[in-house]
């Protein structure tokens, strides 16, 4: 008989915590991926107000 015994309840809680952790990691990956995709599309926009972000728009030669 093992000297320590894990109750089924603890396994269940571990499974739940692991699930939440994986969801959070996946969410981070999605936000990062979205950022990359938006920048690749050339979304030179400031936040969500759809105003061109002057500081990162290309310089137009006269």
């Amino acid at each position, binding site marked *: 008989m093992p000297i320590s015994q894990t*109750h089924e*309840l603890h396994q*269940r809680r571990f499974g*739940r915590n692991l699930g939440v952790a994986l969801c959070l990691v996946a969410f981070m990956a999605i936000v990062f991926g979205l950022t*990359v995709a*938006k920048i*690749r599309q050339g979304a030179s926009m400031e936040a969500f107000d759809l105003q061109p972000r002057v500081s990162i728009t290309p310089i137009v030669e006269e």
Partner: protein
Amino acid sequence: MTDVTTNTQVRVAEGDAEFGDYVALLKPRVMSLVVFTALVGLLVAPVSIDPFIGFTAILFIALGAGASGALNMWYDADIDQVMKRTAKRPVPSGRVTAGEALSLGLWLSAISVAMLGLATNIVAAALLAFTIFFYAVIYTMWLKRSTPQNIVIGGAAGAFPPMIGWVAATGSISLEAILMFGLIFMWTPPHFWALALFMKSDYHEAKVPMLTVTHGRKETRRQILIYTVLLVPVALGLAFTPVAGPTYLAAAVVLNAIFLKGAWDIWRRDEAAADADNYAVEKKVFRFSLYYLFLHFGALLADAALRAFGVM
């Protein structure tokens, strides 16, 4: 000092659920239909969308649908407890508390709408928010318990995903999106009433005013035929829009003919005949109705693929 755990008789607290129980709150089977129809709506749209943004859009549309499922399970726990089909759901079985289901539903609604808006556009996000509201409030809290038309109007919630997928790609609603909506909207009543005919005691015991309970089974059979007849022009009409092609037209003609025949057979039968063969026809039509929807949207996808490869 020892690490021996002596207390192994920890009582399982109510609501001490597994991760899978929270997943079950999101109604994964309904989500799979949402994912598929939203994906078709997004892919048949005449605008190309970045694959990752497209993936994110589908993911959050599905999550929004899941959120409305959790809200539905929170509110309907009393009905679910009575019905055989739903008694083992996480809330009525006591594995998840009603409060947990409510907060999961609300948080996931907020996250999915916000993320869909950030990933695609405001119109798609607003449509998703409206869909969640429609399913959770208009259908679950109001119509389901008050009118036998619950399935008809509530079916709109299930019909929105392809429209949201389309709007996520294009930014606006068009005739094609409305017809895809119409296809699921008109399909829902015959699909659910066929189920209600052979799951008869469930809805009756739960006192849900299903058409079979309020207007009788003969009237339900008549309504199945009426809605199937109304469904045909919508399904065929979609064939003449730019998103459809020969595959869809051929599929729609065959599938609608079979569905119409099934609805006709249901209408012609009476309860004695149905009882005699254990509702064989009703069960067959219900099963076919699942293929009906899947194959219509599959055909749209096939036509989009043919267009993409330059075959058409």
